[in-house]
């Protein structure tokens, strides 16, 4: 890990995202050093997921630039961004429900397939080798994340916690250097959240990942992030270590307005997610 001085893995420079008259992200800048684990927090509707969507190419930003490993990836299509080494999970789980757990992971390997369509249809030697290789790698990956026993089951039949885990595994299968996790603990109970924390730290070490994490669960954010950035109404309002953020008056103020709504929302969110 190179904490300072080295080239940042990802940098967002003055990114603004507007939808019609609504400014979802306003002049937002961010740098991520290789190996870092940064938490992105903020009240509902602060623009956190929008940050992910502009990084992964879901939306092209209205203004500003996005650089990954020194390359300008602003406005790239999502599949090219993924191929460049950025993977993500979704806030509302988006698995390929009708496909098996293993197939979910195999889809992520497809981008690296060298055989052409005809090779695949006629099962050329190269294709057969690649397919076998993919399956071996896929099973090994599932083993590493503890999903090997359910490899043949359909994804939508998995329990909630395993679905979250599979989404992360699928992202890992694209061989990312940067992993974007969008509220991975949403809908989990404290025990599951504790397990998830361990899991995130585990894959971070094992796959040498840089991680950008959106999360509402403060236990998780404060527990594993080295640095936290706070968004409110599309603007950065604070950045610092967990301790600094917890004491920051602006952050407290931004969250106070939300506190009541969040308490009411907690139970509901659990229902929706479960």
């Amino acid at each position, binding site marked *: 890990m190179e904490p300072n001085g080295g080239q940042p893995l990802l940098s967002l420079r003055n990114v603004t995202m507007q939808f*019609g008259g609504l400014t979802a992200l306003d002049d937002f800048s961010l740098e991520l050093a290789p190996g870092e684990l940064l938490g992105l927090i903020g009240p509902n509707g602060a623009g956190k*997921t929008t940050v992910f969507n502009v990084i992964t190419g*879901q939306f092209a930003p209205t203004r500003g630039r996005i650089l990954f490993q020194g390359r300008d990836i602003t406005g790239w299509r999502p599949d090219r961004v993924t191929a460049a080494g950025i993977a993500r999970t979704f806030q509302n789980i988006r698995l390929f429900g009708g496909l098996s757990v293993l197939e979910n992971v195999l889809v992520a390997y497809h981008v690296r397939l060298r055989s052409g369509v005809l090779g695949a249809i006629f099962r050329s030697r190269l294709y057969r080798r690649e397919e076998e290789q993919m399956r071996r790698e896929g099973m090994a990956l599932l083993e590493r994340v503890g999903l090997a026993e359910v490899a043949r089951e359909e994804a939508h039949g998995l329990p909630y916690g395993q679905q979250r885990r599979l989404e992360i595994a699928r992202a890992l299968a694209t061989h990312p250097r940067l992993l974007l996790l969008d509220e991975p603990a949403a809908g989990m109970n404290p025990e599951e959240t504790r397990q998830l924390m361990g899991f995130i730290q585990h894959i971070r070490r094992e796959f040498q990942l840089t991680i950008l994490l959106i999360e509402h669960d403060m236990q998780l954010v404060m527990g594993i992030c080295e640095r936290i950035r706070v968004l409110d109404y599309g603007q950065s309002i604070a950045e610092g270590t967990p301790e600094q953020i917890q004491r920051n008056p602006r952050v407290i103020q931004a969250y106070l307005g939300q506190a009541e709504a969040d308490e009411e929302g907690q139970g509901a969110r659990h229902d929706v997610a479960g």
Partner: protein
Amino acid sequence: MSLQEFIQQLLNGLSLGSLYALVAIGYTMVYGILRLINFAHGDIFMVGAYIAFYLVGVFYLPWWLSLPLTLLLTAGVGVLIDRVAYRPLRNEPRISLLITAVGVSFLLENLGLVTVGARQKGFPVPGMMASPVRILGAQVGGVSIWVPLISLAFLLLLLWVIYRTKAGMAMRAVSRDIEATRLMGADVDRIIAFTFAIGSALAAAGGILWSFKYPQINPLMGIYPGWKAFTAAVVGGIGNPTGAMIGGVLIGLVEVLTVAFFPTLSGYRDAFVFSILILFLLLRPTGLLGEPLKEKV
């Protein structure tokens, strides 16, 4: 082309366009609420024409009674279709709904072929429509004047319903956010049924006026007018009733004037309209007046 001919063609295009507008309303309102392309809508137009044909031509009811009765009965058919074929699929993927709509379309057409037969039937046209009218020094058929005028009256009535009545407000609310409206305690299914009723009644009006203009009716008569009306809805911005009206008139004018100026291309007029449809879907899918639809990620 002489000025008189030009005026005639212009009026012709206007009357055709106003008919497309009437039918396009049904497409656009149903799409606005259910995101469903109601494939069967063109066939409802046909059903309306046949109901009027039987009321007037077979039971000899007067027009002042037949017209409202036809609108009412056709509205009933529309509501019935929604109740039986579409409502059970509300929470299913939209493609299931679309396939069902294709099925309903074929069912109506073939029920028509079985019950009333494939042969063309002569539509009873009231004298007022048949007699010529002088306008701006040009002699034009009554239909070219009366059809757009009556259509306009219906369209104004519709705008009044949508923007000035409680039911209209409910419809607009549902098309904006169906879940929120449901949470607020509104009976969404009833509002949707009402939408189908209005759309179908206007299609029936369109079917009757169409049959004044082209007084030979058959069970497949709804297919092409239906698609052109759909194109009109897309051109105007699908989901937007005012847009559907503008789109309808535009498509009507373009169709008639193209054929008038380039008679050799008359065989291609349908292909022409479909090309406009594809072009609009591609270059301006939101149409002239539509708001962009965004998918939430």
